[in-house]
């Protein structure tokens, strides 16, 4: 925890004065004492880092291009299309007019929004409730929380509890069992603990209660970490598919997008009511492959929409977690 605080403090200080207490390398300039790199070394470095970038971006590029291609282009390429020739949004039109995919998109969005909201409310409250040192029982509750990171009933006992509570086939079974992440609570708590004690004391003297302090002081001063934790939760809900497999494997109208992706793209099963594999006879004019790739793109798009705003804060969340273990 102390380490997290130092990281934050040094960062703040550097922002304010342009220098940090620990001397860091000035970015963008090679220190005078460092020998200039060899040409071979530079080339190898460039190639390696280029490879890292390429293995992520090239498959995504190919998938996007194929989703925008006509059947003719797919035929010409013999499958995936590497370079756009005749761009068409037909696959997306067909996909969004398909009831299964549209339904799945709504289910996924619903679970993600409701789940993230619930998780955030519950976690933020708990993190603040445990962040005031000296409060009654906070250590006991903390131990209770942390123990769950080491002891778990495992797959089958959890499954039995959820089904005995009537969760089979219910949307809540996709949300509640994983709604609380102790890891995320610890991340939030570390930041709330570091909120200026003077500020809180001053507010308390002015008559503010804990709810008000949380809402007016602690939350506004820790926006970055709140955003990162919300992203972690949101991505978790958006990506979850195993719970679907456990609790609603047969109700295809309740499936979220990831499960549709698994069934119709990964496993190549036909959509319900269709005859052919891939995406059914009524869509014969659209390349089935383009349609499948459009579903892939659909599962990535929401992530790409929030990613640019979040990625600069990742360090904050991950490091706290790593230091806490």
């Amino acid at each position, binding site marked *: *925890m*102390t380490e997290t605080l130092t990281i934050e403090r040094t960062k703040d200080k550097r922002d304010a004065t342009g220098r940090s207490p*620990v*001397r860091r390398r000035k*970015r963008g*300039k090679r*220190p005078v004492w*460092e*020998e200039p790199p060899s040409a071979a070394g530079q080339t190898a*470095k460039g190639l*390696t*880092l280029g490879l*890292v970038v390429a*293995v*992520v*971006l090239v*498959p995504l590029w190919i998938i996007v291009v194929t989703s925008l291609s006509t059947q003719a282009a797919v035929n010409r390429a*013999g*499958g*995936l299309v590497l370079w756009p020739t005749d761009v068409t949004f037909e696959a997306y039109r067909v996909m969004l007019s398909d009831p299964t995919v549209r339904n799945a998109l709504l289910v996924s969005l619903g679970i993600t929004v409701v789940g993230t909201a619930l998780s955030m409310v519950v976690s933020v*409250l*708990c993190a603040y*409730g445990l962040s*005031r040192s000296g409060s*009654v*029982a906070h250590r006991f*509750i903390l*131990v*209770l929380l*942390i123990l769950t990171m080491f*002891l778990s*009933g*495992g*797959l*089958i*006992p*959890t*499954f039995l509890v*959820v089904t005995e509570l009537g969760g089979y086939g219910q949307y809540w079974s996709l949300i*509640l069992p994983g709604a*609380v992440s102790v890891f995320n609570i610890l991340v939030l708590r570390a930041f709330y603990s570091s909120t200026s004690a003077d500020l809180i004391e001053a507010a308390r003297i002015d008559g503010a*209660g*804990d709810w008000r302090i*949380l809402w007016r002081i602690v939350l506004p001063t820790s926006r970055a970490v709140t955003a990162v934790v919300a992203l972690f939760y949101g991505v978790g809900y958006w*990506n979850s598919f*195993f719970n679907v497999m456990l609790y609603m494997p047969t109700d295809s109208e309740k499936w979220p997008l*990831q*499960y549709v*992706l*698994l069934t119709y793209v*990964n496993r190549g099963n036909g959509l319900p009511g269709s005859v052919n594999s891939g995406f059914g006879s009524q869509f014969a004019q659209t390349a089935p492959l383009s349609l499948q790739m459009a579903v*892939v793109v659909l*599962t990535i798009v929401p992530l790409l929409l929030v*990613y640019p705003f979040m*990625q*600069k804060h990742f*360090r904050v969340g991950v*490091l706290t977690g*790593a230091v806490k*273990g």
Partner: protein
Amino acid sequence: MSSVTTEQPAPKNKLSLRSRLRRDRSLLLMTVPSVALLLVFNYVPLFGLLTAFQDYNPLVGVWNSEWVGFAQFVALFDDSLFWGSLTNTLYLSFVQLILFFPIPIALALLLNSVLSERLRNLIQSIAYLPHFFSWVLAITIFQQMFGGAGLLNQFLRSNDIGIWDIMTNPDTFALLITSQAIWKEAGWSIIVFLAALAAINTDLYESSAVDGAGRWRRLWHITLPGMMGVIMLMLVLRLGNALSVGFEQFLIQRDAVGHEAADVLDTFAFYYGIATNNYSYGAAAGLFKSVISLLLIWGANKLAHAFGEDGLYRK
């Protein structure tokens, strides 16, 4: 973990328990929803582990099912499929440790040496991206690239070379799942190592360079010792999780490569527990895994302490 041990002791106040409860009642109330959810979905299932000693019948519930003692475990240890899953788990874990673990460290060193901050941030953002993909998505992407109908075979076919289906070959499965894990998570794992690098005081580099230490000697005598704490911590976490090699990844690909190669302890509990309604059997397999995992975490920490590092918790 450390927060519990390193926190300063609360100021000794003379308030009675009752008035402290009144003072902190909002704080306590705030923890109620989380604690309640964890009790229901984490602590109650712990008691559900009792089903491992029963012949659980969903129709009569936990309380009325027949107790069979260790019969499920006896059957488990007699089951070649179980030993197959255990061997697969350990083998895959070992392969991942050897091939995966060094990569983020090397990438962090490489990235740290990039001078332009903007370029560094750009590469980092791209490298982190797959971490946020679901396993369904990641495996779909691999399938499109290397599967029977994927890009690689598309190329091989058009050049009249035979088909090479990596996605369904049980012999190379260990390499396949390791490369998937590297593709998805290696970039994200860089973060902690980069932070460790950033915490090393540059004065050390400067004075050693003045003393004539070259690039490699600085790496060996300053950088690596500076990263050792984090490397050990990550290694301890990895060893402690040796029996968890990635559940969803295997679940999705098991049917394509066959259960001999792809069954691990977690999928064993799923396929021979839930999917066959043989709940007690699966719970026994799960309990076995939990107990061994706890022992591994404990052992890995002992190891870290022996090397003079903190590990997951302090001595």
